C-alpha cells in the first residue's frame, strides 16, 4: 500500500505515510484521507519512504492545504529524501508548507 494513514487518539493529528512514487496514481486515496476527516487540526505528511514525486503530487498537497483552511492550514511535510526535497524547493513550497 503506497499510502497509510494514522490518526492520533484525540483525532486531531493525522499522519500520512507515502511510500514509493507520490503521483497521480494515489490521488483517490489521498483525497479520501482529508475528505473523511472530522476535527483534524494538523496534518503530518511523512515522505521518508517516498522516492519520487511529480507535479500532480504538488497539486494534491495544494488541495489538502485548501481543504485544511488555506493560509490557516497546519501541514508539516517531514523526512524528505534529497530528490523529493529538491522538487519541493524548486516549486518554492516552503512558502506554503512547513518543511523540515
Amino acid at each position: 500500500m503506497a499510502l497509510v494513514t494514522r490518526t492520533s487518539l484525540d483525532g486531531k493529528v493525522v499522519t500520512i505515510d507515502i511510500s514509493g512514487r507520490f503521483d497521480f496514481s494515489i490521488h483517490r486515496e489521498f483525497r479520501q484521507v482529508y475528505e473523511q476527516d472530522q476535527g483534524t487540526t494538523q496534518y503530518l505528511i511523512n515522505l521518508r519512504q517516498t522516492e519520487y514525486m511529480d507535479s500532480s503530487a504538488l497539486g494534491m498537497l495544494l488541495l489538502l492545504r485548501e481543504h485544511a483552511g488555506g493560509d490557516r492550514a497546519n501541514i508539516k511535510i517531514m523526512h524528505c529524501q534529497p530528490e523529493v526535497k529538491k522538487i519541493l524547493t524548486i516549486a518554492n513550497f516552503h512558502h506554503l508548507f512547513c518543511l523540515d
Partner: protein
Amino acid sequence: MVSASVVPHNPVASSAPFTVLIADDDRINRMVLHAMLKKDGHTVYVAENGHEAVTLFEQHQPDLVLMDVMMPYMDGYEATSRIKALTGERFVPVIFLTAMTDAQALVHCVECGGDDFLHKPYKHAILKAKIAALERVRQLYTTLQSQKNALASHHRRLQREYEVAEKLFSTIVHPGCLDAPHLKYLLSPMSIFNGDLLLAARKPAGGLHIMLGDFTGHGLPAAVGAMPVADIFYAMTAKGYAISDIVAEVNQKLKAILPTGVFCAAALLDLDATYSQLTIWNGGLPDVLVCQPSGGPLRRLCSQHLPLGVVDNTRLDRSVEVIEVMPGERVYAYTDGVIEASAPTGEMFSQPRLEVYLTQDCAPEQVFETVCDGLTTFRAGGPQRDDLTLIEITCDAGLANHTSPEATTSYVAKAPACWHMAFALDAMTLRTLDPLPQIMQMLMALQGLHAHRERLYTILAELFANALEHGLLGLDSALKHTPQGFVAYYTAREQSLAALEHGCINIALTHTAMGTAGQLTLRIEDSGPGFAYQRCQPDLAANTTHSGRGIPLVRALCQTLTYHGAGNCVEAVYVWSQGETNVSQHEP
C-alpha cells in the same frame, strides 16, 4: 439445378427467426430438415451439393448453415472453407451433419471452419438445442461487432475534433519568433496537446521576451491553460511591459481560472536590445543554466518563486534577477520532462547528466544537437511520461538583429495632427507603476506611429530611465563597469525605488504637423539635481563599456537632443513623414 425454396417466416413460431442454408445430397434428409426448420418459423434454402451451397450462400447470406460431408461436385469440407472465406466480419455458424464417426474426420470438420457437428441419425431435439446454442453465440458476436464499430467511429470523430481544436490551439499559442536564428528548441509533447508552453516575442525597443511554462499534468486539460497565457504574453510584450508585469497578469489570470492543485511552473526571460543583460523570473522550473562559449562552470538561475496560479497577486513575489551576459554565452531553460526522461531501466536522465552534456568539449553551435541526441539515445524508445521542452538562447546581438516577417506589420500612420499631453508622476506612482506602456499606447492611438514604435520606445525608455535612476534615485552608472557592479546596480535600483518618498518626473509630449510630416517633441524633467551634460560622451561607436550607451543611442535616433537647466530636463525631437519610416535618423 438450383432449387431454392423460400419459406416466409412465421413470426409466431419463434421469437428470433433466421435464415438457414441446408446442404445435403440426400433428398429425404433435406425434406426432413426443411420441414422441421420451417415449422420453427425459419427461412430455409436448400442445396444438393457443396458447389450449390456456396452459390446460394453468396446470394442469400443466411445466418446458419447445416452441412453434409460427403456430397458430389464439392464436398462439405471444401464448401465450408469457401463459405467461411465469404463471411468477412460476420459470424455464420456451420454445423456438420455426418454419419462418420472416426475422430480424424470430425477434427477435419472443425479445421476447415466448422463450428460444431452432429452424428446421423440425430434426434431433432438435439439439433434444435445446438442451433439455439450457436444462435446465442452469433448474437453475442453481432453485439460485440456493433460495439466495436461504434467505438471505432467514436474514436474517428474524437480524432477529427482533436485535430480541429489543435489547429485553433496552435493559432492562439503560436510560437512567435521562435524561428529566430539564435534560438534552438525541442518540443516533445506526450499527446496532441502540449502541457508545456514555449513562447518568444520581440520587444518594441529591441531584445526578446521568452516564456517557458509547464502546466500540472499533460494533454488537453494542461494545454487549455496555455491559451490565456499566450494571449497575455504576446499582447503585453508588444505593448512594452516588463516581464514582472507579465508575471503578475498571468498569475492573476491563472489563479482565477485554474482549479486548486493545477498550476504552471514557469520562467520568463528578458534579453535586452544589445543582448548583454538577462532578466529572469523563475517560478518552479528547474535551474536555468548559462554556459560560457569556452566551456567552464555553469551559472545557475534557480527557481525563486512559487509557480504561477498558486497564490493570489497580493502574495506573489514579482521580483526578478538581473545578470550580465557575454557575447556567445548560451542560456538553457527546460521543463522537468527533460531531466525526468527515463531509460527503459527506469533510470532518469537527471540534471547532472544534462550538465555534463552542456559543459562537454564540443563546438558551441553543436551542443544543442548533442543534448537532443543524447536524450533520444538515453530514452532508447522507451515510453514518454511527461511533456518535454528544451530551449537554447545564444546571446549574440549580431544574430538578434535579424528581422523576421512577423515584425513587419502593415499599420498606417494617421495624418499628422497637433496635440499635447503631459504626465506628472509622483514618488508613489513611480514606485508602483511603469508608465511607459500606457504612454506608448496613447501615442499609437493618437498618431498610429507603429513603424516608429521601436525607436520611440527606445528614446522614451532611455530618457525616462535616466531621469529615474540618476535624477531621482542618484545611482551611479559607473557601478555597471564590472559584472559584479552590474548586479549591484540593479539591486540598488530596486531597493532605492521601493524606498522612494519624494520627487517627481514630468513627461510632456507635443506633436505638430508640418504638411505630410510630423514632429514629436518629448520633454522629460525630473526633480533631481541634474548633471554635467556638457561632458557627456557623444560618440556611440567609441563607447565599448557596459554603460553610458543610452544617451548617444538616443541622440542617433532623434533629430535633436538638448539638455536644459541643471541637466534635469531633456528634450528630444523626432521627425517623421508619412510613407517613410526613418527620416529622423541621421548617421551618428
